[in-house]
């Protein structure tokens, strides 16, 4: 039973097509089939958030979704947020403010924080703590994670206001 199914995903802008059993969880697809090892397997019970990715604009725990469910969807992992040479403002802020110790939760934490800041560019400390409640960290006590996310928000808002002309230009081009 359970024939393999044809699955098509866009991961960090790249289209991926493959055959997989329906029971293949998305986190295994990412890590073992596509070698995208930023999303981590932590608790594997949808509690810890280490496997968090963004799927069609939603933060999702990829240990609790089958790859076949995500077929046709657009997925962003930590690998899609920045590069070693051009860090995402969140990555820069985590580095600057000591927002990680062992680093295990960090990819999920930053991927979740990116979505949080997209939805709420000016969060309060309480908004940040509530917004990352689905991501567990056993090292930092969260203090520096919260500090990092608030710092990244400030940086991103400053960048946005100083480059608003450029953004306006991009929007015009997109509209055309």
């Amino acid at each position, binding site marked *: 039973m359970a024939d393999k199914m044809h699955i098509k995903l866009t991961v960090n802008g790249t289209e991926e097509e493959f055959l997989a059993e329906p029971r293949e969880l998305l986190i295994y697809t990412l890590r073992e089939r596509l070698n995208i090892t930023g999303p981590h397997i932590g608790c594997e*019970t949808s*509690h810890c958030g280490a496997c968090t990715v963004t799927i069609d604009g939603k933060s999702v725990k990829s240990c609790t*979704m089958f790859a076949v469910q995500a077929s046709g969807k657009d997925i962003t992992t930590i690998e899609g947020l920045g590069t070693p040479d051009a860090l995402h403002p969140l990555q820069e802020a985590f580095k600057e403010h000591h927002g990680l110790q062992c680093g295990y939760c960090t990819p999920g934490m930053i991927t979740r924080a990116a979505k949080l800041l997209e939805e709420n560019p000016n969060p309060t400390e309480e908004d940040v703590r509530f917004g990352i409640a689905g991501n567990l960290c056993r090292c930092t006590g969260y203090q520096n994670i919260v500090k990092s996310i608030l710092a990244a928000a400030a940086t991103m808002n400053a960048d946005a206001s100083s480059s608003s002309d450029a953004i306006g230009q991009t929007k015009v081009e997109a509209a055309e």
Partner: protein
Amino acid sequence: MIPAAFDYHRPTDMAGVLSLLSEHGDDARVMAGGHSLIPLMKLRMADVPHLIDLQDVEGLSGIDVGETIRIGAMVTQADIIDHTGLTASAPILREAALQIADPQVRYMGTVGGNVANGDPGNDMPGLMQCLDAQFTLVGPDGERTVPARDFYEAAYMTERGDEEVLTSVSFAAPKGGYAYEKQKRKIGDYATAASAVQMTKDGGTCTSASIAMTNLSDTPIFSENAGAALAGSTVDETAIKAAVAAALADIDPTEDNRGPVAFKMHVAGVILTRAITRAWSRA
């Protein structure tokens, strides 16, 4: 944790869902957000040879707000939290949804899954009983509605037949004050005790009160007597104590890792008192 092998179906209309259900019977399960079912499949506590994913089925994602509020089964907790019209008309839904699980789970978790699953830990069933909601079920013999207060039989046992799908919940736009109060050990946990309260007032007198509870029996519990203890009163300390006592007489919590029975009764009393007090302050 790899679940047992299964066949995956993603029909695009309800006719397709019903035909799969009638073809596979007990071997098929519908899945909304999957955040209750997939963990059970991974733990091999649920055996689902045919998984029917509802994500592409048309017509299950709407929120209609009027004198009657209708919420499609595939509406997520995040959708509820973001819906300003719904929040203006029935703010208790947003207050409850914000206390369910965590942000990631709320993007996926649906109203339909939460009410149809029959897990006593789910928050929406008690809330729906408080609001006197009707559940719409579609099956091979057509559509029928079942009151939320009659829907739950035991843990994971509901009025829904194996070949039926819960497609929406609907209820009259609530009036007056509201509160959904929940005690949990940590974010993401089910309630140790939770309570949904809606109250109306005229002058300084309570004219009606509806009180339901979550995770304090093997089903959600609507306590008619608790509401009756408040109606006609000025919701003073004596009336609140009477309502709490009536509510506690209607529940039958069991000992588990959230604590022994006496502790749960104590927490239930605290939560009920807070919920009634807050709902009254907003009435």
